[in-house]
């Protein structure tokens, strides 16, 4: 059996979870296994029956799981692994997924390969995986000696696919929890003060780097985003280090990973640590005054020139078109 440990948000499976189920199904086909899913959370029972392409769903539905309760979730996941003896355990390589699986690995004394992108199956057995290093700038092939093999899947590594078929069997998992498993828990959720569309949801992201030159210059990127609509403004580490933008706007290895339809990079050199944050963009348009800048090797469209002339001209043209 392959056990997919999934995460839910707002009473739905997250995109990363759908990718995880898809990867688990692909793997199961090659290893001739069945897939079971584990859902932990408040109200997950309602989601279980709608899952397809898995033969069984284990659920731990608990009133107290309004948000992530790390140690309780880990105890439950570890119990599911011990009870069901899967060959492979797969979870989303999100912040929460990696946190949860590291706790599970520690509890069961198992190795954990995080953020996997590829799986090598030989003679029906998973032999090796490829995983992200340097935030995805490099890929590492690793062999995992402990069993079951515990993995997380890098977000966006594969596209989620829906499956047909019969409804899965649903089984309630009951694991005794004590106070201790609640010693780490969310006390409060403070809603973001940021207005507008988030970097990870926006269809178009406009990024600014050192070439912007000042915090004030980002105002024109905001204006461009507003004209385009469904767009958000991001930044490089140079821009956040200079306090031109808050760190939450940073795109890259130590910032956000985005996957918009279009990324417009303004005054950004294209350092690999920045580009790994936007490599899942469908298209990348770079505006840079240096024709030799590395970003032009990593973009689909290039405009060579001073962004301080090009961006205002673009804004003026979009305004003119809107007015017309």
């Amino acid at each position, binding site marked *: 059996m392959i056990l997919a440990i999934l995460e839910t948000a707002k009473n739905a499976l997250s995109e990363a979870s759908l990718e995880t189920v898809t990867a688990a199904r692909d793997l199961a086909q090659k290893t001739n296994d069945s897939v079971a899913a584990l859902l932990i959370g408040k109200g997950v029972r309602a989601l279980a029956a709608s899952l397809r392409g898995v033969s069984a769903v284990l659920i731990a539905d608990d009133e107290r799981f309004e948000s992530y309760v790390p140690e309780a979730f880990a105890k439950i996941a570890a119990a599911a692994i011990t009870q069901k003896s899967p060959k492979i355990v797969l979870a989303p390589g999100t912040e929460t997924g990696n946190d949860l699986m590291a706790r599970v690995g520690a509890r069961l004394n198992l190795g954990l390969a995080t953020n996997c992108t590829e799986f090598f199956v030989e003679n029906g057995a998973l032999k*090796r995986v490829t995983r992200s290093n340097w935030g995805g700038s490099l890929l590492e092939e690793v*062999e995992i000696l402990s069993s079951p093999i515990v993995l997380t899947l890098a977000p966006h590594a594969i596209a989620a696919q829906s499956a047909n078929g019969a409804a899965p069997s649903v089984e309630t998992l009951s694991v005794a929890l004590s106070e201790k498993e609640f010693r780490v828990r969310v006390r409060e959720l403070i809603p973001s003060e940021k207005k507008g569309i988030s970097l990870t949801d926006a269809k178009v992201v406009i990024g600014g780097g050192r070439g912007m030159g000042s915090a004030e210059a980002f105002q024109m990127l905001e204006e461009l985003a507003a004209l385009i609509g469904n767009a958000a403004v991001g930044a490089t580490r140079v821009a956040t280090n200079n306090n031109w933008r808050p760190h939450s706007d940073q795109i890259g290895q130590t910032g956000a990973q985005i996957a918009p339809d279009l990324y417009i990079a303004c005054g950004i050199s294209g350092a690999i640590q920045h580009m790994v944050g936007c490599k899942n963009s469908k298209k990348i*348009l770079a505006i840079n005054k240096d024709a030799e800048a590395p970003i032009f090797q990593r973009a689909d469209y290039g405009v060579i020139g001073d962004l301080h002339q090009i961006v205002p001209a673009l804004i003026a043209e979009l305004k003119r078109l809107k007015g017309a």
Partner: protein
Amino acid sequence: MKVLVCVKRVPDTGGGFKLTADGMRVDTTNVGFAISPHEECAVEEAIRIIEKHGGSSTVLTLGPPAAQEQLREAIAKGITGAILLEAEDYESWDPAATAQAIAETVKPLGFDILLFGNESADTCNYQVGLRVAHLLDLPCVTGIKALEIQDNRAIAKREVKEGWEVYEVALPAVFTVKEGINTPRHPSLRGIMSAKKVPIEQKRVTKPSTQLVRKALKKPQEGRQLEILGQGPEAVPKIVEKLRELGAI
């Protein structure tokens, strides 16, 4: 307050990578070394905690003898003590092995706050801090971007898409830190000079059996074909055309 901060020595690669001929490692010829970015922020956080609440801070790394450089850098900024777990073969240690050596070393030392980076810049395993916490049976919050100490409790904030998750845990506790929690300071010249004299506690450690074994390192495919739309503001009509074509406007 006794604060520990664990860091990793990683190549300071700049904007790109070169691999060794055998494809097993990053080629570090003519490349300097640094502390991973998240951990640089963890060092800064440790210094700030001690400045505010008093006590002592210790920086620890598991690495080669040359990793003294990273420890002294942290001392130069204001960390007061250092431990080097010496292992020439540190690159082949997996997270469980590293965590075991760290936990054994720090267990008798009674730290109140143990800080790690959320993930190291090179291997990005996301788990050494959590595994140490498990071995020491301490609570752990990962990926924090704010930390406040009140008596024997800590309030840690984690940034999620919807806003901030606020955790409150009793000390001692483990936290893994993300860049953005603070802006790390630069060491002063005086700091650099006096850091040279601070003794580093050294202990040779041997690798326990590992569960993850590297087989190869490779560069991902970059499959984009560049189309130059033009030069300067004259390119604007072409940009607009593309924006239309892509459905952006």
